[in-house]
């Protein structure tokens, strides 16, 4: 179901560095689109003979099938000139776009899916953290999230307790800020931009802005692809396929507070694409 909130949102549709002048066919919300690179001007996205609005940001091309009332969000922290900006590349996942975002917001699965990297089976506890829907910016935020991680980042030498902040600035996008091992006081920025192809198929475009002078770009790409593809097989097996927005459907625990807020926020703005409203 495409509500106004769904049609008017911005979505990623390609890496700016990987656009084709001849055009590449894709899907957005079940509708066919063609994404064109441009030798000197602005890339274009076309759907049914109509030129769609575009924004170039975070190394990706963004578009909308509707008429976005507000600009695409920004990530001011990512503008620091010392950061390495990493285009991780697309991974297609047979899951609801909202499931992909929700999984990214979850910490409790780290010890079991990202064993000995983002979590350890001996340290499964999720400590209390703070979640809020910030009405002034209309975003979901989780802060004071702490977790023990054997190898938190490519740049982490060994096990550390990592602090996280999660931010959902748009229904199919999430940004996480985490302790940056080489630069205490700064945050590494890792984002997941999700292009909904259909309600249960999506293209996921991870992107990062890191302080890491020691790793090569390829090593950073590999690390993030390793993590995300560990999630992929889990995401493709989640049931129900669509994210339940009815609170009666699933019983959350304290560790799921971010997910609860995310679902509530989606429901409040009638963002229902990839969601399940009533129990089947």
């Amino acid at each position, binding site marked *: 179901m495409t509500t106004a909130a769904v049609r008017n949102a911005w979505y990623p549709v390609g890496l700016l560095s990987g656009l084709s002048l001849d055009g590449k066919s894709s899907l957005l919300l079940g509708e066919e689109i063609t994404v064109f690179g441009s030798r000197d001007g602005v890339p274009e996205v076309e759907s049914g003979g109509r030129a769609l609005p575009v924004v170039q940001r975070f190394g990706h091309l963004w578009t909308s099938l509707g008429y976005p009332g507000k600009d695409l969000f920004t990530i001011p922290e990512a503008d620091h000139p010392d950061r390495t900006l990493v285009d991780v*590349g697309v991974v*297609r996942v047979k899951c609801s776009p909202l499931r992909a975002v929700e999984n990214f917001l979850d910490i409790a699965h780290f010890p079991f899916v990202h064993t000995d990297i983002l979590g350890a*089976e001996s340290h499964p506890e999720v400590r209390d953290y703070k979640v809020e829907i910030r009405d002034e910016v209309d975003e979901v935020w989780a802060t004071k999230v702490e977790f023990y991680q054997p190898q938190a980042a490519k740049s982490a030498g060994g096990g550390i307790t990592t602090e996280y902040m999660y931010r959902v600035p748009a229904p199919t996008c999430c940004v996480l800020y985490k302790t940056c091992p080489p630069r205490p006081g700064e945050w590494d920025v890792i984002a997941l931009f999700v292009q909904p192809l259909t309600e249960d198929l999506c*293209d996921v475009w991870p992107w990062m802005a890191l302080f890491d002078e020691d790793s090569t770009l*390829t090593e950073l790409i590999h690390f993030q692809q*390793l993590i995300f593809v560990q999630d*992929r097989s889990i995401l493709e097996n989640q049931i129900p396929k669509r994210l339940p927005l009815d609170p009666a459907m699933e019983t959350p625990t304290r560790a799921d507070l971010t997910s609860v807020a995310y679902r509530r926020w989606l429901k409040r703005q009638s963002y229902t694409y990839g969601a399940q409203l009533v129990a089947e």
Partner: protein
Amino acid sequence: MILYDYILSASCYKVRLLASLLGVELQLRPVDFHPGREHQGAELLALNPAGSIPIFVDGDLVLTESAAMLTYLAARHGPDWLADADARATALQQQWLAFSHRLTAELGGARLVEMLHFNGDLKALQSNGIAALRELEAALFARRVAGGTFLVGDGPSIGDIACFPYVALAPDGSISLDPYPSIRIWMRALRAIPGFIEMPGIHRLHELAPDPFAEAPS
């Protein structure tokens, strides 16, 4: 020994896996396969004109076929893994190494289309992949009835390592492994070998639930 490696490549993983099982250290050289397509660039084409990875370098020896890399590692560091006790075993080993190329082309091809936007005839790749899985299931079933667990000989061998990764990753190409019980038991046995390492999409064997009848540790 240098391995030009990509974290999501099952063919690279075969070499990493056998090296780990043999306790051999490899020097990994990450290749930006996706999205950078570095394997098609001048530096790597000079090493491997076929434009594929993995590439394995040991001194002046350059290998570009994963089956050859497995053979080399086993011959040098674990001859039991060659499972070449007699003419029959030697021939079967070659047969499975060759068979693994079908798995790579078909199951691996479906995975690249479904996961990383590669071009290909998905239906044909999936049908051919399923045909190969059915052959493997039949062969493993026959082995089990005869008392064996692995493809050739009494223990695991390079033929198992060559076939295992793309089979385990078949679901990435939207091919279910539910219909193949013998394959699943075989994969379980391989994942239980000491020194086993995972790759994205192939999870390690987490400890089984505790035995409720076991005596509590004192």
